[in-house]
């Protein structure tokens, strides 16, 4: 059997299997790929995943077909004696071809990833305090966050603050008087601006079906965007190890109709009014007292935070 025969056979098997796998992957598996299509970012993340899958499947199948072919056809029982020498030690054309193909593929993957990241406004990932790929309306939401009675109307972007603490996420709605609650309710068809921060250690806010993940760092406002597209409930989990109850740090949230959201927000604002008065004014980040209640780790009275940001809990500066 000559050389072209082997390669032709392998290529045939590879093409058939790859096409089959890609078709199955795109049409059967693809639409159900996590994280689903509840939001624009989730939808984009899903598409990106599927596109990478379309490239990855032929690569994996290619190697497997080759290896499978090799171990069946060229086993010691069947194969003729191999030929060593220079030809077997390296073949410039093969090497150049291999390097070129892998280089093109990886560069294309990086370019595609960058493009997807930019057009999808950070793809729902935490973009730090000064996002450079913000969707329209984000700037308006940032301003609105500091006018506590601005509420929300459909079409506007809604700012929501996510506060991680050991071991629960709580949520502040700055445009509704800045009330805080442990429920996460979002309106449908709206751009949501998540401002994620923490009061102690690092957490990670992972709203799975929304395609949003942003680390909650103390004293950092980690911003992530999404745009809701479907009604329904979604899961929030902490995805950064934060101590003993990390595994229990979850809650479910809901995307509801704009009207339902309005009424829920207004009701909760009213119901929590007594407590909201006791909260510090809304700020992007808060300075938790590193010591905890009644003294603690660092010597008290010597740390003097000349802080420009709001203090969560009045025990700061340390007494």
């Amino acid at each position, binding site marked *: 059997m000559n050389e072209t025969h*082997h390669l032709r056979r392998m290529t045939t098997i590879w093409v058939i299997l790859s096409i089959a796998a890609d078709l199955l992957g795109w049409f059967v598996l693809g639409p159900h790929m*996590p994280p689903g299509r509840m939001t624009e970012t989730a939808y984009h993340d899903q598409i*990106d995943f599927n596109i990478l899958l379309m490239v990855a499947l032929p*690569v994996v199948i290619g*190697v497997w077909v080759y*290896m499978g072919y*090799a*171990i069946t056809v*060229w*086993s*010691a029982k069947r*194969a*003729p*004696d*191999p030929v*060593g*020498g220079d030809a*077997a*030690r*390296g073949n410039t054309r*093969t*090497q150049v071809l291999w*390097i070129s193909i892998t280089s093109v593929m*990886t*560069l294309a*993957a*990086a370019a595609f*990833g*960058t493009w*997807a*990241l930019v057009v999808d406004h950070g793809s729902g*990932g*935490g*973009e*730090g305090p000064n996002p*450079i790929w913000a969707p329209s309306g984000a700037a308006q939401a940032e301003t609105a966050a500091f006018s506590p009675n601005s509420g929300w109307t459909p079409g506007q972007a809604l700012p929501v603050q996510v506060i991680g603490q050991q071991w629960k996420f709580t949520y502040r709605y700055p445009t509704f008087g800045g009330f805080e609650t442990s429920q996460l309710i979002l309106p449908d068809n709206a751009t949501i601006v998540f401002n994620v921060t923490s009061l102690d*250690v*690092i957490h990670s806010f992972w709203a*799975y079906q929304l*395609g*949003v*993940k*942003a*680390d909650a*760092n103390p*004293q950092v406002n*980690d911003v992530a965007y999404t745009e809701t597209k479907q009604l329904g409930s979604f*899961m929030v*989990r*902490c*995805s950064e190890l934060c*101590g*003993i109850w990390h*595994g229990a740090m979850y809650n479910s949230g809901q995307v509801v109709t704009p009207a339902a959201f309005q009424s829920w927000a207004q009701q909760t604002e009213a119901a929590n009014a007594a407590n909201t008065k006791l909260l510090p004014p809304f700020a992007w980040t808060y*300075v938790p007292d*590193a010591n905890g209640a009644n*003294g603690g*780790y*660092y*010597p008290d009275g010597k740390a003097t935070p000349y802080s420009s940001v709001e203090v969560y809990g009045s025990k700061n500066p340390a007494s």
Partner: protein
Amino acid sequence: MTISAERPVATSGGATTTTERVSWTQRPGIWSQHLGTAIVGAIVGYLLGHWLGNAIASSYPYIQNSGQNVIAVTLGEIFGVAGWLLGIGALNYPLAKMAGRQPGKEVDVQGWSKYFRYSTNHKTVGLQYVVGVLLFLFTGGLLAMAIRTELLNPTTHYFSADTYIKIVSEHGTVMMMMATSIVVGPLGNYLVPLMIGSRRMAFPRIEAFSFWVFTAGYMVIFSALPLGGFPTGWTGYAPLQTQAGPGMIGYLFGFAVIGMGMMAAGFNMAVTIINYRAPGMTWSRVPILVWSLLATSALLTLATPTLFAAGVFGLLDKTAQTAFYVNEHGGSAYLWQNLFWFFGHPEVYIMALPGFGIVGEILPVFTRKPLFAYKVGAAGMIGVALLSFFVWQHHLYQSGINPDMRPLFMLTTELISIPTGFIYLVGMGTLYKAKIRFEIPMLFALALYFNFLIGGVTGVFLSDVPVNVTVHGGFFVLSHFHYTIMGGLLFAFMGGLYYWLPKMTGRMLNKKIGLWHFWTMFVFFNLTFFPMFIIGLLGQPRRVFTYAKNLQGLNDFSSVSAFLLGFSFLIFAFNMVYSLWINPQKAPANPWDSRGLEWQTANPVPSYNFERIPVVLSDPYRYSEPGAPAVADLGDAGLVHAAPQD
């Protein structure tokens, strides 16, 4: 015990004969330095340090308040490790050196007791490392069994939440630290001098130091459990790290101690490879495993100091109350993430590259073909090593650190798959029109190609920022790195053991038991970890003790497979014991018909490796090439011809 305390040694020129003191570490009998004195030293040191810490710090307010004296624990650990090194004899020469003394001529004590001593013979150290890393591996594996037990049920808990986190953290830390040395330690130390035609390593004391510090690190990391464990996982993120109890010292100090071992091992390895190559062992003839170990050593020596520094800062935060990682006092929690991953990503390649090297050695032997694209393969390893310093922030895509840098890190990360792909080019090219013998080492090598492909391709998914949003911090990434480290490195290591243990011990490992081991390990490895990709995509974060009820089926499947995977390691352990001790079968001098220089010396390998320093004549991969020159001129033993052609 065949040597006496005083023995005649011929000095240069052979004219005068003087008597020279034999090092304390090499004296026969129990009145010398060995594991026993090391243990005594460690215990005394720990108690002394602990007492000192209590004397100094028990009145400090935060220590009184917390009811746990981290300073006493830290000093105890430091003194304990110092006592361990003092007891084993690691400090004998460094102290004698202060009086200007030269190292004494050291020979190994004969008999099994040499394995419990501060041996400077690279073959003894290599075998010590084999046992050491297997001990690491098995204890880490038991913890993995505990993790999978807890995850059998989303609501019924076998461990309490805090204990579960301790187990997870301990498992990750032990495994990661073990994996850094799993090839460099045992196979590297044993084989590199044989492969490059040297009679010794460049710095045998540093080599021995690396092993005994490695064992000390093992104990330090495990001391965390009785001290209350640490809750941070192997990544040890601050400020959770700063919040944790004294068990955290076991992590921070353990990392620092093992870091010293890693630096020492890499330093010695790199210097040896550069300087001790036999005449004729040009860079284009260096075996591919040696190339991979050189690249690994570069990472070990240059990346580990960062980890060491990060660990020292963490220790200072916990004991001296600095605030490196505490935002509220002027530090930054991001700092740890940056320092840790600046080490942490090269670390990942510290664990991948040696595996590539091993399969590169195994493939030509069992295909009877030269290694395809040898230079591209070597260049790929160096390329991976270099690039690995520029990718660390891909662990931090969602952290809010430098979000505008994400495209750059996405690019560098995906670029790394180009040199990694070279390894596949090498493998697939070598298999082309080969004559494959399915011996156990070859099966493991092929399994690496299967597993690492999955691990590598999922790595591309992880490096893509939009996809990373869903898969970061979940079981997907967990499965990904188990596929690369366990599916890659550990399979390669197992293949390497089956391949080289006949050389190292003079005994063949039983093939029938080996086949059982391979197939159970390969099948159950994949059945354990492949479902975890799906579990991760369905939204299960890492390190949780409870999960969504609908994922129980997949988790149980994974757990049961994991138990069977654990069982396959028992088969392996049994094979080791059976073949090496219960029913030993003498190995032929060159059981696999390899051309490798390491197979050309006598069996068992004499303590001086080569009768004459060999003159290397060609690279070791010229199989199936009639008229290929012998691999080396071994001097008195005459020209050793190429391995028999089949």
